[in-house]
């Protein structure tokens, strides 16, 4: 065999083995690689109530409620809302400042713990942006169309 062909064979074997190794690694680390769980997954699994987890989904429309609460003499805004993946829902309790892009019907990822059954105490709220980019005018036209189709 020519040295050139030998190098080519070694290389192909090397690349195959490395990619195979990484694939096995990634598949077995799947659990640790996901950034957040969906509400359905949260209901399926049991989580330690002291372990921080992240849950992501859509903020359910008309579920956001805000009220001012006094904690340690400071006036803070307590926000409750429901995260849904259109299958299961989770009630979120959060005290703090929401990101600008937090809106009903938009994606969100919350970080925190399940303290009481059925309530998720969030310590951090991140807005998730979707892959759609458009000017406001076009968005208006689209919502009008969607609404008229709905009727």
């Amino acid at each position, binding site marked *: 065999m020519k040295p*050139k062909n030998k190098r080519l064979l070694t290389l192909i074997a090397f690349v195959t083995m490395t990619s195979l190794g990484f694939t096995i690694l990634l598949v077995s680390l799947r659990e640790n690689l996901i950034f957040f769980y969906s509400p359905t997954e949260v209901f399926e699994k049991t989580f330690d109530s002291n372990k921080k987890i992240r849950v992501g989904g859509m903020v359910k429309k008309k579920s956001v409620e805000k009220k001012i609460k006094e904690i340690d003499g400071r006036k803070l805004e307590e926000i409750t809302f429901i995260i849904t993946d259109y299958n299961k829902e989770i009630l979120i309790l959060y005290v703090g400042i929401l990101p600008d892009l937090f809106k009903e019907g938009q994606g969100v990822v919350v970080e925190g713990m399940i303290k009481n059954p059925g309530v998720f105490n969030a310590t951090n709220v991140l807005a998730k942006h979707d892959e759609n*980019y458009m000017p406001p005018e076009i968005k208006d036209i689209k919502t009008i169309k969607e609404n008229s189709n709905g009727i």
Partner: protein
Amino acid sequence: MIFKFANPLRFQKFVSKYQPTLLYLSLIFLVCGLFFSFFNSPPDYMQGETVRIMYIHVPCAWFSLMIYSLIAICSLFSIVFKHTLADIISRASAPIGASFTLATLITGSIWGKPTWGTWWVWDARLTSELILFFIYLGLILITTSYEDKSKGDRYASILAVVGIVNLPIIKWSVDWWNTLHQPASISKLSSPSIDQSMLTPLFIMTISFLFFFVSVLLMRIKAEIIQRKIDVIRFNRVD
């Protein structure tokens, strides 16, 4: 045609003649692209004016992956055929690729703060892009730390080949795992989910960056060829 330019002397003449033109073209497209990005494109319905960071962030991210692909192909070629030109191209590309990757990470971070509410999260897309930056740094370190350049090139090409596995991870991380980063807006299989008015500045900026990359790459290849000639002359004089 490749063999015509593989002649170093002809290549140097070609670079001296056309490299400035490429750089000017890049500048013209940059000015045009920045004008479109800042004044001639609408704000986003959700992000508002923050969307304009995309016109730098996205082309940088594309080039961080494309330059790595170029290095990977050159490394495969170099391992099998032992052609010095492939080594020179990888060596010349690595710092440019590292710069594009760093620009991607920084602009992404600036965008992330107002949009997501955080500078950085350890999700699959952001982490794999950071790993790409470290691989680039590794390549630069290895190629520059050996007295014997061919040795450095050989080890760097092995690292580059191992690093290929990171490319599909970056590309499809947003589809394989739940990430905070949104999925791709532009793909070959479907119509883009970016409005036409926002695609225009994005593509002008991409063309500008392409000209910039090619012109800097040619200049660096030329410098590397001259450097190697000097090394040969020095080596012979000591003998």
